[in-house]
């Protein structure tokens, strides 16, 4: 499997390098769908220039990156292109290895399932995949990530979203490999960059407990002991990172500039998310209320999803990533690319997906219409902001449908595994399954 992966990496790097050298690189770096006020490269350069002028980058409202990014790019600013390409490559390799490890476990579980096959209905054996079918899935995941136009655009724009994705991919890899300490460290790095990966604590803990055969039962002491251990490692590394950031610039200015900015959304630059126009048109009286509602919305699905999917933590991780990418305050296409890269892992659900054609058409159409309507609003002046906002709404609805469709298909497959594939009604005719 190394050879196709290497070929894929070479192709991906070539495409990115070619785009870097072309004139498209500057155009892409300005696009609001690809960069946000948090992740734009122009702002990183501005922050470094302010530091050179002797002014703290956080004294203004242009720079919202964490101090570690300043530290990193202080040395690497001349090699930025290589850094971002490397980040993409690391993400792809991490996802590849993670999915490979996950598939091994799935196969092991299936073997266990096959041993007890007589306990289960016969016809659902066709729902179980053979190892041969699953052979190419890791490569497909890496390909979905590297050759996704969203990822390529994000890398060419030098958006720091690529670095975030790399950290999250490494987190996924270390979690699936079963290394609790490294998983906590990478999760803490991801949370430090943007607050939302905090919700990935739950799937990480569930997976690691499953792997170590600790029963997920809140009445058992071993459960709480593991939770405490993981949280201790996580919070400890977070504390270390925050203190390191303080010592870099000698002040706590970065806390309101980075985390206050992500949570209170003062900058209303248009992006592909739901926040900007909502808060541009919000009545002042209700601003705080709706801000809290929207931010809680991101964190709020963690507990119910964890309870429902406690036996399937990797799918839970996918669901959480998707929820974060859709509902975060400044989303970009780079965030979407990350959870879309994990779709091949669940390609066996395709027979239960209901809306996939509609969703993919809408996503494609919206991706094409974003730059068109932006141009009409900002440059041609013949459209107004409502057009761009409408496409934003449609894009987010399509993403929500995609995610809920996959969730539906996953739950349905689980139901069939238990109750059999071809279900019959009482009178013997073919049954329809509904959610009741």
């Amino acid at each position, binding site marked *: 499997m190394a050879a196709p992966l290497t070929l894929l990496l070479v192709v991906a790097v070539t495409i990115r390098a070619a785009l870097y050298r072309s004139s498209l690189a500057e155009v892409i770096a*300005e696009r*609001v769908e690809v960069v946000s006020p948090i992740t734009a490269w*122009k702002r990183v350069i*501005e922050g*470094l*220039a*302010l530091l050179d*002028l002797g*002014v703290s980058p956080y*004294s*203004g*409202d*242009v720079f919202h990156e964490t101090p570690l990014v300043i530290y990193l790019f202080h040395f690497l600013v001349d090699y930025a292109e290589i850094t971002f390409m490397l980040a993409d490559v690391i993400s792809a390799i991490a996802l590849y290895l993670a999915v490979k490890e996950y598939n091994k476990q799935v196969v092991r579980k299936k073997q266990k399932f096959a041993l007890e096959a007589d306990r289960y209905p016969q016809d659902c054996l066709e729902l179980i995949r053979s190892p041969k079918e699953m052979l190419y899935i890791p490569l497909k995941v890496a390909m979905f990530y590297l050759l996704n136009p969203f990822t390529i655009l994000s890398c060419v724009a030098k958006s720091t979203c690529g670095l975030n994705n790399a950290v999250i991919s490494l987190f996924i890899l270390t979690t699936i490999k079963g290394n609790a300490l490294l998983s906590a460290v990478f999760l803490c790095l991801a949370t430090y960059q943007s607050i939302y990966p905090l919700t990935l604590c739950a799937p990480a803990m569930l997976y690691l407990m499953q792997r170590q055969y600790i029963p997920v039962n809140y009445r058992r002491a071993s459960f709480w002991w593991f939770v405490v251990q993981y949280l201790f490692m996580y919070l400890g590394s977070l504390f270390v990172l925050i203190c390191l950031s303080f010592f870099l610039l000698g002040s706590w200015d970065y806390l309101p500039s980075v985390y206050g900015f992500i949570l209170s959304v*003062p*900058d*209303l*630059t*248009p992006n592909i998310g*739901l926040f*900007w*126009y*909502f*808060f*541009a*048109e*919000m*009545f*002042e009286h209700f601003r705080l209320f*709706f801000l809290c509602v929207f931010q809680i*919305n991101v964190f709020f699905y963690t507990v*119910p*999803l964890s309870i*429902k999917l406690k036996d399937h933590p990797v799918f839970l991780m996918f669901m959480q990533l998707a929820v974060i990418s*859709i*509902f975060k305050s400044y989303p970009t296409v780079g965030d979407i690319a990350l959870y879309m890269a994990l779709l091949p892992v669940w390609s066996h659900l395709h027979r239960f997906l209901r809306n996939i054609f509609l969703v993919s058409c809408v996503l494609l159409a919206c991706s094409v219409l974003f730059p068109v309507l932006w141009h009409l*609003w*900002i*440059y041609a*002046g013949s459209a*107004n*902001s*409502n057009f761009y906002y409408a496409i934003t*709404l449609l894009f*987010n*609805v399509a993403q*929500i*449908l995609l995610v*809920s469709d996959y*969730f*539906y298909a996953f*739950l349905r497959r689980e*139901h069939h595994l238990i109750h059999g594939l071809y279900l019959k*009604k*009482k009178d013997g005719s073919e*049954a*329809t*399954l*509904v*959610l*009741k």
Partner: protein
Amino acid sequence: YILYILIYIPIFVFVLLRKLIKEEGENDFQEELVIRPLHSGDIYASFQFRTLWETDFMRENKVSHYRLFPKSLGQVISKFSVRELHISFTQGYWRTMQWGQPFLPSPPGAELWVWFQDSVTDVDAAWKELTNVLSGIFCASLNFIDSTNTVQPSASFKPLGIVNETDHRFLRYATLPREIVCTENLTPWKKLLPCGSKAGLAVLLKSEKLFHSSFFSQTVHIRPVCQDRECKTTSWELRQTLNVVFDLHTSGQGKREWSLFKMFSRTLTEACPLASSSKIYIDVTDNPQEEYFELSPATPLLSQAVVLGDRRTFSVYDLTQQVTFGTVRSLNLLIRWKSTEGDMLRPLLHAERYVAGYGLQTGEIHTVMYNNHPFRSFPVLLLDSVPWYLRLYIHTLTVTSKGKDNTPSYIHYQPSKDRMRPHLLEMLVQLPPHSVTEVTVQFERALLKWTEYTPDPNHGFYVGSSVISALVPSSVAMDTNITQEQPLFSSFFPCKEESSYFVRVYTEPLLVNLPTPDFSMPYNVICLTCTVVAVGYGSLYNLLTRSFQIEEPNPRLAKKIANFIRRIRGVPLLS
């Protein structure tokens, strides 16, 4: 006894009164008008009214007896512990290339800069109150000055009066480029004059003619000045200036001839009785043998003054002398042109500013500075205050002179904070001789909340003028003696050395469009976005709380009716 009381009490009262009056100090009022014919046929008139008062506003027992100094301004100075106050209201833009340098420059709109005393503890609170009080005094909307358009320049606006030490924490500068000047602002300004608009030169200030001009500017400057060389006594100086440029073509007739009556629709009949000096200066430097224009009535008085680096000759009319008014008891100066030749003195320092780029996302501000001196280079201090909603990227700042990079020797940049303070950029740039220097910086336009737009959002947003301050080399030795009797127009800016004079140039204000949201849509947007969030919530809620079940079909109502009809007809029923 009664005799003694009758004699001594009035003497006692008289002595007391004299003591009290003596404590108030000397009041001195001077007024002058300078008329300078411009090369394009327009005419530039500059009024200056100066009140000097030897008093101390800062002492404990408040000043209560005001004579020539206006009480409203005196109270403002003492209440807010103001050291210097400079306020200007301008309509129109001064065209330096056509009209030369003004005696007192001012930017379009309103400009206010204040130095507070060292004793002020909360400068921001004092500034806020001061702007509101001034807004009431001048009937202007200075209450729009808040932290989003106030800056603290570190080098550009040094005090023009007595300087002790300059801690720029006590300086505040704000400009309102959108402010319009009209009669409502002129009337309270005229009321501050000792003679009001009833006697002296202020009689000429009629708003229907003054606002029918290319350029109008009224200013008030308050500062402490030294009375003598050793500065043993200081007095407060209040200068009110009014600069106006009348356009040849809009004032009708087209004939190149100007008179006091044509400019102001009034003539002068007397000087202000409270003035110690009341003079009119006509600039006749370009007209030594009266070959270009003829001035009537003729006057024997001639005076020379060094102003703006040039030695100019003026014909003087002294209004305190009755002979000036002649037999008709009124003075109507008439300047009639005989030929239209003559060249203009080219200003040495000149600046322009414009916005480059297209679309509503990004743009570039270009400031262009011209140094027209043939062989001398001099440094200039450029001050730029850009509102927070145009996010400047300082790493894109480039300064080029004659095509080559020209690094500023001093840059002070304070980045903006959203909705709190604007950008402040100050640079010291050396302008090479006979060159054009261009300063460019890129910016990004922000989308504001719908309540933050003005009622006419598509008009655009104003960016205040850049201020360029410089000491320009002078070909004529400037006069550094402060105590010598000088005309008011040449003694405004303090002159520290003979070889250069101070010049402040203001560029044009910029008008920048920002992307706007649709203002009719707040409720719709809230509903639609909440719907999308609810779609997500609803789908996930369904999947989380419900489980799969086999559907047991209930016969539909339509089917039941259909079966009923079929039973009547006797055909097979639907399943």
